[in-house]
């Protein structure tokens, strides 16, 4: 099991910057997820780790080995492609055994018997024990997925790379396979890099999540931190739901005071240590819809006044859409709340649930001296940016 260290990676295709300034340490034995919308560079990053791309500049280390210039077949990674990439001209057994036949340990190769045993064990691990003789087209989607997993795991790789493995499966199967992957990963304690655009998936299986947008890693932290302390508007918006209210800063101290439309004020906290806020700076006050309450719970709760535009009953809650000045916002309230369109609404948001976020995205992160994206720094931090 190895730790993956990415230093200052950049990859372009002609004029298109696929990914840039990636500085991360993916810890040994943990499942790290690259999360982001289509085109954000997560698959590019995965393929850089796998060795199918050579970065424009930057280095990749497995533990202390510099693998940047190593071709894919020498990196000892096991990759599962999004479309499974199962060979149609071979049986399940031959698909899984392929890598074992090629593997050399100190100049020695595996015997036929050994290969057979290990393949059987791998197929048992993914619960496909008696399907070794079948051809690929005779398998269902979930079974194909498991063959791809078995094939990657049987060679005992240092790193397991999964490229959107569950996106071709239906909802129920997806959950089932998710559990399988988590079980296997923790049983074998293998460093895993997982690529997905589904934030539910990401939050539920990961030890660490790297949220990416337009080629940049905006935040790399554990799921709890990603959800409760997002550092940019993009991260806050991409994970879960978030209500954003534009405002300008009036005072900075232990907590930050922001002016919002309709002459209201809101007090919140920052999620980025060390960000240089300035008075008068335009920011967004972000609060999760479920943290907005109809009742004041603490004396220093923020009060927000708006006008209801729409209510939608979704069974376990009432989604309330309201306007604060020109800004559309959303709250998630008790399903029995008595609200209707046109009503004026008073909501309360506790101060430690209100996040004050700079509007710059990556540009803002560059101003933070301890962040990997800090302008002028080429070194990496020892822990994910906080």
């Amino acid at each position, binding site marked *: 099991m190895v730790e993956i260290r990415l230093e200052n990676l950049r990859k372009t295709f002609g004029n298109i910057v696929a990914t840039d300034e990636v500085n991360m340490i993916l810890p040994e034995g943990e499942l790290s997820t690259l999360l982001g919308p289509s085109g954000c560079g997560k*698959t590019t990053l995965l*393929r850089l780790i*796998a*060795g*199918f791309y050579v970065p424009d500049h930057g280095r990749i280390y497995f533990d202390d080995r510099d693998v940047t210039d190593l*071709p*894919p*077949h020498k990196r000892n*990674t*096991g*990759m599962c*492609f*999004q*479309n*499974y*990439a*199962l*060979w*149609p*001209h071979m049986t399940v057994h031959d698909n899984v055994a*392929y*890598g074992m036949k*090629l*593997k*050399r*340990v100190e*100049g*020695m*190769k*595996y*015997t036929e*018997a*050994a290969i057979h*045993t290990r393949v059987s064990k791998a197929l048992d691990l993914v619960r496909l024990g008696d399907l070794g003789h079948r051809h*690929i*087209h005779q398998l269902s989607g979930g079974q194909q997925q498991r063959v791809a997993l078995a*094939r990657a795991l049987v*060679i005992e790789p240092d790193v397991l790379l999964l*490229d*959107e493995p569950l*996106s*071709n499966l239906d909802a129920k199967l997806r959950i089932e396979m998710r559990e399988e992957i988590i079980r296997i990963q923790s049983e074998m304690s293998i460093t895993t890099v997982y690529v997905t655009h589904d934030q539910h998936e990401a939050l539920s299986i990961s030890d660490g999540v790297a949220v990416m947008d337009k080629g940049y890693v905006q935040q790399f932290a554990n799921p709890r931190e990603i959800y409760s302390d997002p550092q940019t508007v993009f991260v806050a918006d991409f994970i879960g739901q978030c209500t954003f209210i534009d405002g300008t800063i009036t005072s900075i101290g232990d907590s930050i005071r922001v002016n919002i439309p309709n002459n209201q004020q809101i007090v919140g906290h920052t999620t980025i240590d060390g960000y240089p806020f300035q008075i008068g700076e335009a920011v967004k006050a972000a609060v999760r819809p479920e943290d907005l309450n109809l009742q004041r719970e603490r004396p220093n709760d923020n009060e927000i006044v708006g006008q209801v535009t729409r209510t939608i009953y979704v069974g376990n809650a009432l989604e309330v859409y309201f306007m604060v000045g020109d800004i559309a916002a959303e709250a998630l309230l008790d399903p029995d709340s008595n609200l209707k369109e046109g009503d004026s609404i008073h909501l309360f948001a506790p101060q430690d649930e209100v996040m004050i976020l700079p509007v710059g995205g990556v540009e803002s992160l560059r101003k933070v001296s301890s962040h990997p994206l800090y302008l002028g720094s080429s070194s990496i931090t020892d822990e994910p940016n906080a």
Partner: protein
Amino acid sequence: MREDSKTDPLIEAKDEFEDELIPDRFQDNLISSLASSSRRFGRGIVAKMRGFGPWLFKGAKGIASFFRNPGSRARETYLKFRRELDTLTTAQLAAVLVTFTLFLILPLVSVVAYSFTDPSTGLPSLVHFQNLFSDSNIWPWTFDTSSQQWYFFADTRTIILGPTDITIQGWDFGAIINSIYTAIIVTFFSVLLGVFLAFIVARYDFFGKSVIRTVLIFPILATPFVGAIGIKSFLGLNGLINNLFYDTLHLFPLQLQLKGLAAIIFVQSLSFFSLVYLNAYSSFMSIDPSLEEQAENLGATGSKLFRSVTFPLAMPGIQAGAILTFILSIEDLGTPIVFQEDVQAKHTLAFQVFNSFASGSLGIDPKGPAIGIILLVFALTGFLTIRKYAGVRSYESGTKGGQWNARVRRISNRTTFFLYCLLIPLLFLALIPQISVIMLSFAGPWTSNSVLPTSWTLEHYSILTTYPAVTQSIIYTLTYGAIATVIIVLLGTSAAYIIARRDIPGKTYFDLLVTSPIALPGIVIATGFFVLYYNTPVFPIDAPAFLIIMSYTVRKFPFTVRAAYAGLQSTPVVLEEASQNVGASKNQTFAKITMPLIGVSVLAGSLLSFVYSVSEVSTSLILGSLGPEQAPMTYWTKEVLSSHSSSYASANSAACLGVLMMAMQMVVITVTNKILGARSSAMTGI
């Protein structure tokens, strides 16, 4: 003991380890990989042969079931037809069926009937085959009844060493074995050359690649006949190859001559490799790249990757090309005719059929139809094999989603240099047919040892204008081709439309019928025309014009059908449905919506049909010899070549006619390549 090993997991693991690993030795790997590939090859052939039986059986059962309950079955079929067809479609279907019945099925059936009939009694008999197999030109083992002994006639002098030269000709085992082994060797070389070039073009990017690709397009339409004319002069003792490599560059220790079957193998390999190239190229390009990436990820590179993943996945396409090459080689008439001065070349099945007409009399040597059956059997088997596996033509990998990261690697300048060192001789070889014909047509007097002729001249081209027979034949040929193409477009689009859009009973058989002419030997069709129609109003003596046109129509039908079919497949049915929804009838929709959308594909297909008609050899030569005044260009090319006239140089003048055909081919291929791209099915008609 167990206690100990349990408490020390490291020791246990190590034991386990040592049991599993054995030294990795190159010899072992080599032996095991050879053994496994030959095993797999053998198993594959056996599986295919075994699969053939049940498939034929199923087809027969289907036909038999029709007869089991003819009454209700007929009604069912009739109702289905009525539902699917309207007046226009019925007319189209009928027209295609009538044409094919009259000019393909009946002639072939008559050949079969003729060859199995004893002419003196009119009863079915095998007498023609007996005669065939007792002719030592055809079959080497003959049984002499008078001496009760088997005699074996064969010429095994393959390599003849002279004082300063070495002559390679093939073994002569009689026409049947000759044609078969020639076809096998030709297929082997074609696959080798075609797959190699296809792989380079598909997987590597290098300086000047687009030039190479353009250059490789030209051999695609080349007919062996034209190329043979040029190669024959190149290969002689005073030909370019010897002058270049022996006299000038001193690379050869001896002068090299290829004669007889060896020459035929040489010519055909160079003419047919492009079929395999085209099929292999489109197969390589359609392999999902993630399948190769996954193999790389697991440790495979280079030749291991090629052998275990790339090549097996491209196999169906390559096999289709290889089978077609085999069939075309066995039925090729043009090349043996060019080399007919060598006795060996005459001992080929195609030439023997041609010979049975050469007398020009009312009767034909019944050997012809008998040989025709043999060719027909080969052709049909091959064709059905291709079509049977056309469905599995490319492995349906069933992969959805993910990216398609095309695996084209840019190679370094140094490697590009070595690549060109290999490519340039290969390309020279691949283009010898074209180069030689062009050079020959412009060549002035050629001294015996110089590489290039002493002067270049245009005077050979006078053959096109100053000899009325030749000039007339050119005009006739273009006319025949044009008429045939018009018929093909009308009937071919109809056939394609019926196959693509209508679900009539027997659709697969219809599809097989209209695409079969690719594989069916032209010489057998010509034989059939003769047997059936000679001296009838359809084919008056000395007037084969009508049948020539119909032969072109039927034989070059598949190209337009395939092209139109490809066009229809890429035109969603919903476009036609939308038209009908707003009020247009089926005919109006066909004219206003469908035709314009597939028009470009049909144009490409019709150009291919035209140019193939104009350079068609087998039926042109045979039917032409029965009516030289109306004969097409290819017939007169042969006449010019084998004449010993004093007023013109025969080989050079023939080459001029060849250049004319090639020029037309090159124009068409450039245009169709733009339109159809690399879709091999449309270009080769399978």
